[in-house]
């Protein structure tokens, strides 16, 4: 962290996408559906004042569909599939005029039956959201979707490892439970913002995105253009947490700019953020079987992952949620069935943790239930079953560079678990990184130092600083001599995207290769590339889930007011395997930020709906953790090993927090299965005990 007063984020000098401006630009506002499911019969925009540009269905009839994993979304919807779905748009000289013009647009609707629960949405007779079955979007994100035709399932991921049913039937002890997690908001300070401009048939977008190359490919497909004719510039973001991934505002901003013949800027307000992209609500039914001595023999996991009105990356989330729910254990027989399901809620997508938060809540709570049933220490039960170097995971891949036990032990020690486990809970986590993926980077010499060009986007996580530090070390110069410009698909080499805590690990190694290339060559320019290969067979879950595993654990110590159910977190600790720390203050902030976000998931955060309408779409009614909500003690470790590879750590400390707290309650005999853990739920658990 730079000296106070000099950080451009503090002085206001940093220009976000929200600040982008172009000469002659117009401002956009969106006409959104008030219904959860309704066909647009007619739109009357005759009352819109002159000087405004209105984008209607006929203007985008020639455009294709978009979607990062399933092409199921259009620039404007002719059938609104969630409250807030965009059916028309207006551009005007000012934002206020655009918003007033939107209110002058009259839409005639034909309401359709709607469904809001992923389990109900797969039942026979549920209203269907999309008539055509989902099909993989090949060019952007390599996931082979397996829709169930004629249903709302856009992808089902399976793991078939051993024979879980038979092994379960033979187990000495079996625990079964259903766990639920709600929708949650990313709540970055900066809302979504995009500015589109057309010039000579080329489209340029300045947009808040973690995924510049994915947005480029998807827009090119949507507008029938060559990818090279779309340019994405990605200024730093005022937070994202997964919210600013894939095509969000870019398609509608571009279509409006095309019609207006002028640049168009679109910035959402806070309420709109709640209907743009949220965390997947999920239902997980889990069965786990063990021998009397605690050896795990089988696990079965059924997941219903609510991806909302459009698939977005729901198939990928259902996949990662599915295998993360197996947990970092040696289990010889595993069955997972994880469904990404359409419902009439706003779309759900990437959210820091990427499905792990949901399934780790279920799987690690079940471990403590099993320990209780076996009369074993939850720590000992985990220890005896944890994956170690050379063990096979349920995907069949052999695990290397394994540090689960160190993470778990460090977390347990931090709260004095072995001295007195009362009121204390543990959780250990395995989380995959985007696989396969590719990262390219270029290093160019300048008169005063070097410029590093890559598409790793800055969202407050500090990737620029990490790249600058790594480049300075490799090049033997001062960090101040290394310039890292905003990602720009015209000049930055290709990168899959800035997600899944992969940039320091992947781009960092690409950078080493680029510096070597520069040294071997003319000393003026070097390029580096790394890719990780793999992927899972969606029908069996066999293959390589992740080339690199994020490993961590959390421990919580709680006390409970048993008259009111109020839970106080006395101490929360996370231990994250870092391998080698590149940017220590940044890494520490990632851990602390992840833990605090995990605390929000555990205790506070839930988007509430009434008939598909968000009822707490503001930061007064939707509670994110405030300073006063922090645990009395918040501590963490960054576990390092001499000569180790750099590990990603942007999310690892988040998913284990809810289960650590839930298991701390379990140690007091209080059984909770739902998030967030409200005082009312705790009091119900007190009553049941």
């Amino acid at each position: 962290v730079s000296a106070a007063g000099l950080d451009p984020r503090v002085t206001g000098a940093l220009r976000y996408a929200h600040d982008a401006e172009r000469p002659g630009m117009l401002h956009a506002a969106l006409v959104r559906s008030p219904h959860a499911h309704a066909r647009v019969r007619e739109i009357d925009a005759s009352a819109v004042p002159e000087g405004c540009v209105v984008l209607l269905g006929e203007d985008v009839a020639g455009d294709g569909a978009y979607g990062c994993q399933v092409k199921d979304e259009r620039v404007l919807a002719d059938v609104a599939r969630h409250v807030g779905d965009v059916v028309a748009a207006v551009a005007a000289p000012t934002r206020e005029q655009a918003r007033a013009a939107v209110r002058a647009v009259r839409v005639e609707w034909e309401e359709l039956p709607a469904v809001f629960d992923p389990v109900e949405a797969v039942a026979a007779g549920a209203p269907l959201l999309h008539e055509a079955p989902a099909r993989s979007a090949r060019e952007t994100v390599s996931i082979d979707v397996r829709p169930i035709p004629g249903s709302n399932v856009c992808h089902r991921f399976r793991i078939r490892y051993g024979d879980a049913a038979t092994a379960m039937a033979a187990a000495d002890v079996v625990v079964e439970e259903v766990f639920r997690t709600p929708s949650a908001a990313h709540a970055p300070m900066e809302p979504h913002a995009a500015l589109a401009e057309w010039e000579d048939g080329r489209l340029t977008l300045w947009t808040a995105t973690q995924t510049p190359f994915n947005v480029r490919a998807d827009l090119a497909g949507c507008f029938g253009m060559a990818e090279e004719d779309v340019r994405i510039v990605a200024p730093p973001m005022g937070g994202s947490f997964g919210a600013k991934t894939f095509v969000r505002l870019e398609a509608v901003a571009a279509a409006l700019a095309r019609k207006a013949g002028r640049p168009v800027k679109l910035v959402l307000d806070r309420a709109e953020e709640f209907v743009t992209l949220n965390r997947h609500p999920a239902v997980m039914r889990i069965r786990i079987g063990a021998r009397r001595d605690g050896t795990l023999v089988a696990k079965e996991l059924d997941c219903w992952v609510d991806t909302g009105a459009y698939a977005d990356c729901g198939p990928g989330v259902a996949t990662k949620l599915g295998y993360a729910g197996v947990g970092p254990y040696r289990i010889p027989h595993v069955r997972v069935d994880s469904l990404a399901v359409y419902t009439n809620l706003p779309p759900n997508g990437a959210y820091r943790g990427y499905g792990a938060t949901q399934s780790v809540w279920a799987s690690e709570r079940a471990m403590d239930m099993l320990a209780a049933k076996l009369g074993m220490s939850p720590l000992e039960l985990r220890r005896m079953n944890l994956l170690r170097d050379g063990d096979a995971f349920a995907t069949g891949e052999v695990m290397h560079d394994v540090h689960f036990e160190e993470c778990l032990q460090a977390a347990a020690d931090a709260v004095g678990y072995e001295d007195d486990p009362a009121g204390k809970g543990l959780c250990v986590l395995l989380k995959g990184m985007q696989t396969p993926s590719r990262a390219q980077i270029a290093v160019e010499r300048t008169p005063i130092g070097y410029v590093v060009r890559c598409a790793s986007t800055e969202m407050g996580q500090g990737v620029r600083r990490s790249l600058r530090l790594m480049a300075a070390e490799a090049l033997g110069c001062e960090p101040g001599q290394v310039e890292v410009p905003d990602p720009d698909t015209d000049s930055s080499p290709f990168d899959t995207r800035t997600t899944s805590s992969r940039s320091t690990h992947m781009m960092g190694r690409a950078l080493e290769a680029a510096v070597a290339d520069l040294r071997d060559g003319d000393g003026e320019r070097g390029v580096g590339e790394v890719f990780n290969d793999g992927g899972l067979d969606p029908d069996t879950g066999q293959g390589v889930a992740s080339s690199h595993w994020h490993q961590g654990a959390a421990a919580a110590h709680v006390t409970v007011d048993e008259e009111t159910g109020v839970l106080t977190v006395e101490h929360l600790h996370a231990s994250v395997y870092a391998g080698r720390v590149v940017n220590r203050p940044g890494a520490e902030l990632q851990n602390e930020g992840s833990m605090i976000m995990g605390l929000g998931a555990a205790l506070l955060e839930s988007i509430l709906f009434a008939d598909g309408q968000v009822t707490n779409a503001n930061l007064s009614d939707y509670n994110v953790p405030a300073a006063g909500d922090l645990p009395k003690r918040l501590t963490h470790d960054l576990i390092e090993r001499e000569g180790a590879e750099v590990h990603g750590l942007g999310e690892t400390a988040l998913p284990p927090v809810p289960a650590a707290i839930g298991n701390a309650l379990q140690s007091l005999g209080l059984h909770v299965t739902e998030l967030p853990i409200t005082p009312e739920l705790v009091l119900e658990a007190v009553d049941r005990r």
Partner: protein
Amino acid sequence: MAPSDVEEALALRAEHGDEATVLAGGTFLGILMNQGFLRPSAFLSLGRVTALKGIEVAGGELRLGAMTTHRDVERSEAVRAGWPVLARAFGLVASPRVRNQATVGGVLADADYASDPPAVLAALGARAVLRSPSGEREVAMDELILGYYETCIEPDELLVEVVVPPSPDRATYRKFRSRSSEDRPCVAVAATRDGPAVRVVVGAVSEVPQSFPDLCAQAGATLDAQAARAIAAGYAERIEPMSDARGSAAYRRRVTQVEVRRALEELM
């Protein structure tokens, strides 16, 4: 409309009535407007009426101007010295940013059931001063707040001041939150003890603050553990709690019983 003195503000209020939305700190209106629930055609802003801002002690009573911010009340030496429970209750509202903006008059006039000040002001026997061009009247809190977001303020009146009588011997305010520390209360209990008289007001559980003086009177002159339990049980039975995102009616009833008892225990 942004008048700069009280007379001008009253004249504009009388002229426009409910056609113009009275704007004080804007923390409540801001949320409603940002979400599109409210789109006023005109505002009567009191932000420039400096005469409505101020804290004064006169004749043993505390007088809070309607435009005094929560933060001012929280930090006032006079309030801290004479009415510490009031300073504490205003200091528990939301966050410093909100308290720097939200006003004494605003929080009463918006009559949001889930606010901290109404219960504590009611327990202290405070009166709101309502003024119109034709005169002035004082109303107690239970006369002022009539229901959800509903007050007795007439379309030609402005709430200009809140008067708090001399502090009772003992007073406490317990804000029970079920979510974030910066959230509105799920159950708000204000209790006072002045000589033999005990008063308990429960806020945030139903549309207006709840008070059952007969329950406190029945408990008798000595406030002991048994009396506290009896009063608490009586309140829990009598209130008609509502359900919202902060808690179900059944949960509020249970918490009311606990929190009323704890409040009274603090006064023993």
